[in-house]
């Protein structure tokens, strides 16, 4: 900096330099509307797809978490005599982590079953009671891990009993969700890599179009940083544009799929409202677009300037 040793002067020149670079890159984008639209649309699609999948996964998780489910562990026992059942129930009740224990005698179970039948006389055909005695255990903790641990503990305590937890499906859903998230992460990373390379190629092509200006500027003492600055602003512009397009796409897709999903939930008897993207998702999409745009432009300009 030859002129203006003062800080304010330097800052003014720096700001002017950056605003000029931004203005030029905007001008270039506006004057190549076809290419700009294609790039913005591709970036929009690439951002919208994982965002939509993520939204689906989040909704699925909300579905499983939203059902206020008290996990139950049922022990089916082949026991003779009520005393044994009460004793076993008391032993289980004494275990840490148990909230509640209910013992149901085999006869009581049969009686309850008889009442539920439209024609109780049907059961008279049975020679003896085929139902086992049941001990229902409600664990204190509701997490799938705690329920599984309790199940394990009960199975060890009563090896002759059949232990069945109705919490299994929550665990399965959680496992599916975790696997889904992992798949989504990998797919997103691949898509991000792909779009970054596309943006890099576009940025390199744009720099090659400016080759005369770059040659003259280099001869005059321009640094690479100065030369790639307009490209970086171009990348940021494309990134923001792509982020906004992805938001619009996401909105459209959610609108189109919301009612069928909710109707399906009703069929399954689950009251459920499909949650659309929140403001934070919007910010994340635009932010991701910005970052990918910048990285793409940085890679592309580095390659083009090296050539």
């Amino acid at each position, binding site marked *: *900096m*030859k002129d*203006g040793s003062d800080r304010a*002067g330097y800052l*003014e*020149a*720096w700001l002017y330099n950056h605003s000029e670079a931004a203005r030029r890159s905007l001008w270039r984008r506006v004057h190549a509307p076809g290419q700009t639209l294609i790039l913005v649309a591709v970036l929009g699609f690439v951002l919208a797809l994982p965002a939509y999948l993520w939204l689906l996964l989040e909704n699925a998780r909300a579905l499983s978490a939203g059902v206020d489910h008290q996990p139950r562990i049922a022990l089916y026992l082949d026991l003779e005599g009520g005393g044994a059942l009460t004793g076993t129930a008391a032993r289980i009740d004494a275990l840490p982590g148990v909230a509640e224990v209910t013992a149901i005698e085999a006869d009581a179970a049969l009686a309850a079953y008889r009442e539920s039948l439209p024609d109780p006389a049907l059961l008279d055909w049975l020679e003896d009671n085929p139902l086992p005695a049941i001990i229902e255990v409600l664990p204190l903790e509701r997490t799938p891990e705690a329920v599984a641990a309790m199940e394990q503990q009960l199975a060890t305590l009563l090896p002759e009993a059949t232990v069945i937890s109705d919490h299994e499906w929550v665990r399965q859903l959680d496992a599916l969700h975790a696997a889904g998230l992992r798949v989504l992460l990998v797919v997103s990373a691949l898509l991000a890599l792909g779009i970054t390379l596309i943006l890099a190629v576009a940025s390199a092509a744009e720099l090659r179009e400016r080759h005369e*200006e770059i040659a003259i500027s280099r001869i*005059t003492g321009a*640094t690479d940083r100065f030369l790639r600055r307009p490209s970086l602003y171009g990348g940021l512009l494309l990134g923001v544009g792509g982020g906004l397009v992805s938001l619009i796409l996401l909105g459209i897709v959610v609108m189109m799929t919301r009612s069928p999903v909710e109707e399906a939930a009703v069929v399954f008897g689950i009251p459920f409202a499909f949650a659309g993207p929140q403001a934070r998702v919007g910010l994340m999409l635009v932010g991701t677009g910005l970052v990918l745009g910048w990285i793409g432009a940085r890679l592309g300009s580095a390659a083009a300037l090296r050539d």
Partner: protein
Amino acid sequence: MIRLHRVTKRFGCGTEALRNVSLRVDAGALAFLTGPSGAGKSTLLRLIARLERPTRGRIMVNGRDLGTLARRQEPEFRRNIGLVFQDHRLLFDRPVHANVALPLEILGFRRTEARKRVRAALDKVGLLQKENAQPLTLSAGEQQRVGIARAIVHRPALLLADEPTGNLDPELSREILQLFLDFNRVGMTALIASHNLGLISTLGRPVLHLENGRLEARHVTQPRSTG
């Protein structure tokens, strides 16, 4: 200002553009470089501006040994050099004033100061009234003068010109060379390649003659005269 010691430049194809050239141009001096096409004039200028690297030999410019100049130091080095080309190399996507302002933009000048300097440089080459014109609408002579204004707008210590009068008629050529003499008078060192021997011999400045990559007579330039 410029010192070359036994400089050889051989291109990939095997052609030797310069052979064992030694030269010294003092600060504040102005010298002409002549010779037929292909004699190595452009190569010599490009070596001094560090647009090429020598195959052998040592080059010092403005007290810097170009052999030890790292790539990232090149921009800083070039900011002290003004370059004029035969084909002007103007940017046709922007008006005259923006072309001239390019070096100032790179140097990070404030806008107001840059505008002042651009106008001063255009005034110097007699094109102030064309500052908003598009380069394509200018004549060859005018385009060359815009190129010269761009080369001197940041007041470099060294001006290198490669056939600046190449496509111009004798009258315009004389005007252009007179501009270089004017810049030299205010302290700018200048090395000007030209094959217009008739014209430069009338200017009373040292002439270095290149032929087949050899500097025929190794001139040591005279200290700056007032001519």
